[in-house]
């Protein structure tokens, strides 16, 4: 495992005065290995425990509703009848909308920062993006309510309805708060992580790639397309998956702009509701046992959705290997 260089380095540490690699130097090595394994194991254990706790908390709802919990659309705390479908729909649609908006923007920003921008401009822009990541989500929510939504309602949505109203996506009454508003706010929130990771990945593309492409007479755009983006596409896909993970769990800003209505509608102008939002909204005042259990089960469903999305992403990532002209790792 160890390269000869590290062996030499380690044998020179004060803990092992012997200049030759002695068996005793394996002690700290082994200890480190176990510490690292323990840390990794704890993370796995944590996820298992969270899953177990969510299951334990929702057992009553699971036995009461069975799998129909997943496809029932009713959510009525007064009648004690619960179903998760509108929330699953809202979570997936708002997250996918956010990705559709944030990935092109994020990757384009990263390309600009690594390939095109003057060196002097790069650092200020990077800092601005990192500042965006530090804004608390409730601030995005408030901005959404008071700035974004009035603008969407009076301009963008009216424009979309006028020109694309023939699509079911842009029909129905315009309230402002909507699935699309949530998608836009979440897109802004996941933009920093997608941009930062994409930038790191593009920076790690060897210059040899670019030089080779230029040498073949490629234009700047062709270099970018063939030598850089194609080479980095697996990494960029990974950046999108990380962004998606954040989008799925986003709670506060979403609940402030999505309209909080558990319904499934084809229109992006219609209000919706997400798994994380309904848990945050209703948990504090839930008094009946079945109600609390159902909220816990929503948590379990959210965890399941996140795991399934990640597995799907892994499968897509695998299928990407070797299909392109340049093979990466």
């Amino acid at each position, binding site marked *: 495992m160890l390269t000869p260089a590290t062996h030499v380095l380690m044998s020179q540490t004060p803990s092992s005065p012997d200049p030759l690699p002695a068996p005793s130097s394996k002690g700290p090595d082994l200890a480190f290995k176990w510490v690292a394994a323990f840390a990794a194991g704890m993370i796995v254990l944590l996820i298992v425990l969270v899953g177990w706790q969510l299951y334990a908390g929702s057992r009553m709802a699971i036995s009461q509703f069975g799998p129909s919990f997943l496809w029932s659309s009713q959510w009525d705390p007064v009648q004690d009848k619960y179903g998760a479908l509108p929330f699953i729909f809202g979570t997936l649609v708002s997250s996918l909308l956010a990705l559709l908006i944030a990935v092109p923007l994020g990757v384009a920003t990263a390309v600009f920062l690594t390939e095109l921008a003057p060196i002097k401009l790069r650092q200020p822009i990077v800092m601005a993006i990192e500042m965006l990541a530090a804004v608390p989500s409730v601030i995005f929510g408030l901005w959404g309510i*008071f700035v974004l939504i009035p603008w969407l309602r009076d301009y963008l949505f009216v424009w979309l309805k006028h020109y694309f109203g023939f699509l079911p996506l842009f029909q129905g009454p315009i309230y402002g708060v909507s699935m699309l508003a949530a998608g836009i706010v979440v897109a802004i929130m996941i933009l920093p992580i997608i941009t930062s990771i994409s930038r790191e990945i593009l920076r790690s593309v060897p210059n040899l790639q670019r030089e080779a492409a230029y040498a073949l007479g490629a234009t700047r755009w062709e270099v970018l397309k063939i030598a850089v983006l194609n080479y980095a596409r697996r990494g960029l896909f990974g950046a999108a998956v990380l962004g998606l993970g954040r989008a799925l769990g986003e709670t506060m800003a979403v609940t402030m702009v999505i309209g909080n209505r558990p319904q499934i509608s084809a229109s992006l102008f219609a209000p919706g509701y997400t798994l994380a939002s309904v848990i*945050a909204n209703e948990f*504090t*005042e839930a008094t*009946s046992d079945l109600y609390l259990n159902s909220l816990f089960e929503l948590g379990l469903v959210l965890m399941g959705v996140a795991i399934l999305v990640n597995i799907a992403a892994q499968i897509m990532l695998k299928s990407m290997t070797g299909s392109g002209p340049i093979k990466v790792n």
Partner: protein
Amino acid sequence: MLSHKSTRLALLTALAVACASVSSAQMLINGAGATFPQQIYTKWFDEYQKIDGSVRFNYQGIGSGGGQKQILAETVDFGASDGPMSDENLAKAPRTLWHIPTVAGAVVVSYNLEGNPQVNLDGPTLAAIFLGTISKWNDPAIASQNPGVKLPASDIIVVHRSDGSGTSFIFTDYLSNVSPEWKQKVGKGTSVSWPVGLGGKGNAGVAGQVKQTPGAIGYVELAYAHQNKLPFATMKNAAGIYMSATIDSVTAALASATIPEDFRFSMVNSPGTTAYPICGATWLLVYAEQKDHAKGEKLVQFLKWAYSDGEKYAAGLDYAPLPDSVVKRALERVQTIKY
């Protein structure tokens, strides 16, 4: 405001600790529950600290559901709830658990209409709006109650609370009381399955959406509407008179409400001629027999103080104090707490 308050509390505590270096360790009484009365409770604990420095109250506004759960599990010394506990939950209590009303509050119906006219509404109309059966502002049912008011032909956009809350409980309790159709289709609760409308988070979320959306209607706490200068409707009460929500009209509603022996009452649509119809009380949940003698004694002393001196702080914070008749009955109940 909250952080200001907690800093003050922290400062006060630090001061009390510094001064009390001679006295023995301070007793800590823990409570948790409803967020609606948190302001008045914090004020009470602040003031009471000045009278009795040997005890400190710690109240966490974790919501009525949490308050009921924690007092049932006896992890706190008292609980607090905006709605009375259900029979089912009360049966889980290990010993007799009492509801003790502290203050009342009103829920007002705010709207966004051009020119901010004063709108009159009665219960059945309000229920029909929230059921979606009345969907235009110039509907005859609304227009007939508001002669001389120019009502637009636009859609009514309903806004309700998305988070579970005592405010929603009071509001849906009222709608269930005045509309059999609401009672049968929706019912009352801290969260319900709303037939129409958009959900806003908290009073701020609802008020924000009403303010932003022309033609919107929503409900918020009276205190919130006052502090933010929102217009709100005058409501027709059970005696047939249109009343505006004020501290006095809420106390009048309490005075004319029927209050059973266990204090689990609803005061919506109460019969008094000067009563505002959409209001409700909030309760402390206290065991009839206290396990810890010293804590029980301090708790009872505090409650007696709250009814004699504490109620006067209510109106300043936009809560309605209890009328004398109810205070008398509540005090009698407090005096029977064993410790």
